[in-house]
């Protein structure tokens, strides 16, 4: 009987709901707070206000100010507090309000959160998920739009996720918070308000898997966060000219799905990686190296990169020129096809 019920629950299709990404993350936090009394949400303005992006809206009312609480304004102490809470058996989900404000907390994230399990030989695991509103595209003031993925992906001991839409944001957050390893969960601000019918699903793929969001045979566009959406637009435009582009959403920036990347690029023989962060030593270099190491014989062209420039994040009016534009991606596609 139990078996039957379980099977029914497992096969029942979750309903489609119309949600923005910010609401989907809120839903995930509700599920997580409800399922594990050790889960704590804290940071600047996450309580009564519900966060500057309203991601934590209503959580304090529902779960109380012991589970969801505001802290003083000090990013390093927020992350340091998460370490101590984790050592005392809690499952902290701290928020740092904007990516640029993660820099003051880098010592705690890199020297403490990322290393504590290693330093203590597994005695003090760090089941911490750092929620980090990330990337640009909203013409925000300085320090409110940065792309820190290479810094965190480069740090041993951290895992890094970047969802690209509401449904992904929901299931990746469930996965991140339930994991006993520390995860930097980078929320693309530019997609927070993107509202569409979505199906909220329990995660089924393991941590570190990518997904193909559009199938194609002429080249693979590899992206994460808001750039996935942009690459889908590029693919639509290219299709008008008969070019069929595959779009791969990396999702996990550490660990990277090498097998998934290799499978796609081996089929299409060409790869263009698109990201918002500056070019030099960015994650695109890692992706290009992985593709080259794994698909060298299949490649018909060198891996192209379309990225932000090696400049400090620019002010609003220049932001559209800094971020990879549809045209810049199309030019890269053209370059790769011309080989």
């Amino acid at each position, binding site marked *: 009987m139990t078996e039957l019920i379980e099977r029914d629950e497992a096969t029942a299709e979750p309903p489609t709901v119309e949600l923005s990404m910010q609401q989907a993350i809120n839903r995930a936090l509700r599920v997580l707070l409800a399922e594990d009394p050790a889960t704590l949400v804290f940071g600047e303005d996450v309580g009564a206000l519900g966060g500057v992006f309203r991601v934590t809206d209503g959580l304090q009312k529902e779960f109380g100010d012991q589970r969801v609480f505001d802290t003083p304004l000090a990013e*390093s102490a927020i992350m340091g507090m998460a370490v101590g809470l984790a050592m005392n058996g809690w499952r902290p989900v701290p928020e740092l309000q904007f990516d640029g404000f993660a820099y003051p907390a880098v010592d705690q994230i890199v020297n403490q959160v990322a290393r504590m*399990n290693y330093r203590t030989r597994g005695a003090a695991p760090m089941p911490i998920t750092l929620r980090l509103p990330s990337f640009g595209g909203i013409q925000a003031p300085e320090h409110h739009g940065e792309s820190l993925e290479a810094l965190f992906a480069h740090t041993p001991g951290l895992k890094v996720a970047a969802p690209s839409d509401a449904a992904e944001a929901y299931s990746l957050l469930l996965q991140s918070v339930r994991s006993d390893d520390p995860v930097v969960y980078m929320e693309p601000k530019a997609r927070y308000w993107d509202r569409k019918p979505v199906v909220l699903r329990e995660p089924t793929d393991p941590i570190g898997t990518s997904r193909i969001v559009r199938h194609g045979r002429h080249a693979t566009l590899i992206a994460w966060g808001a750039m996935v959406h942009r690459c889908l637009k590029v693919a639509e435009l290219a299709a008008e000219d008969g070019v069929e582009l595959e779009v791969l959403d990396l999702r996990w920036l550490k660990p990277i799905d090498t097998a998934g990347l290799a499978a796609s690029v081996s089929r299409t023989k060409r790869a263009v990686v698109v990201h918002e962060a500056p070019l030099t030593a960015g994650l695109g270099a890692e992706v290009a190296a992985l593709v080259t190491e794994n698909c060298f014989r299949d490649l018909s062209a060198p891996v192209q990169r379309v990225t932000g420039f090696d400049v400090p994040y620019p002010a609003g009016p220049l932001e559209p020129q800094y971020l990879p534009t549809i045209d810049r991606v199309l030019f890269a596609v053209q370059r790769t096809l011309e080989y």
Partner: protein
Amino acid sequence: MDHLPADLTRALYRHMRTARDLDTEAIALQRQGVFPAYVSVRGQEAAQVASASALDNTRDFVFPTYREMASALAYGVEMVGYMSSHRALWHGGLYDVMASRFGAVNAVVGGPVPHAVGWAVGERLRGDDGVALAYFGDGASSEGDVHESMNFAGVFRAPVVFFCQNNQWALSVPNDRQVAGGSVAARAQGYGLPGVLVDGNDAGAVYEATAEAVARARRGDGPTVIEALTYRVEPHSTSDDPTRYRDEAETARWRERDPVTLLRRALLAAGHAAEEDLAEDDARARRQAARIRDGVASAPEPDGSDLFTHVFRETTEELSRQRRTWQEEVEL
């Protein structure tokens, strides 16, 4: 010493004596090339042993930095494992941090202080009565994390004891170039916390100040800052040359105020022990220090595969691949 129980003061003496002997052994091990480097605790035994002894190692938690050997000893940490970090066998030490309730050795000196606040907040959220004690030095008191932590603890009324061992030298920089505002204890006021300045070479005074702060935290009355004024009589580390920056006459004056000697005299004066009792304690301390020395000197080096073992709880395919490559290459 009259007002403290005799068995307590004897225990303080035994731990301080053992820490002193172990410190001497550790310097010898460094000279023999067994330890690549060592940071001496000499002169700070009272501050460390007496403060750690005011805690309950079944429910409290200590967050040390890297010069807390005497605290670890008094708190009951497995000392071969602890000293392994000085032999560079494993950075954080090889003792079980969670079972010992004594955090891993940490060289970012302000870094562990907010951990104490988080641990303490977690304790209160659960409704338990454990207290977190964070050790840090006068140098660390300049770090942002320490200030952020005091403010957090004040706001959350977290059961934390901020225990500053002011040994007056942050490597080569003296107090007047390190601490503005007169003292570390004075800062507490700005965060709404009680700040206590105590003679760090007086084991009885340190014990009482810490016990009071712990009791206060335990009954829900919030954090305390304790500044134990002491002195680092040895160099910063075995790689340091203090003659380049300090007047050795000052060091000599502090050697006169040796905390082990002071406690010994006080015990005898209070009638808590006779000469022959203390001679027995001294002999025991020497034997214990020698056992720990032999243990750490002969401890096996970690296996190479440990490089990969504890990076994640759930390892990644990439890390497993690197581990396989490493294995193949070492087997060649």
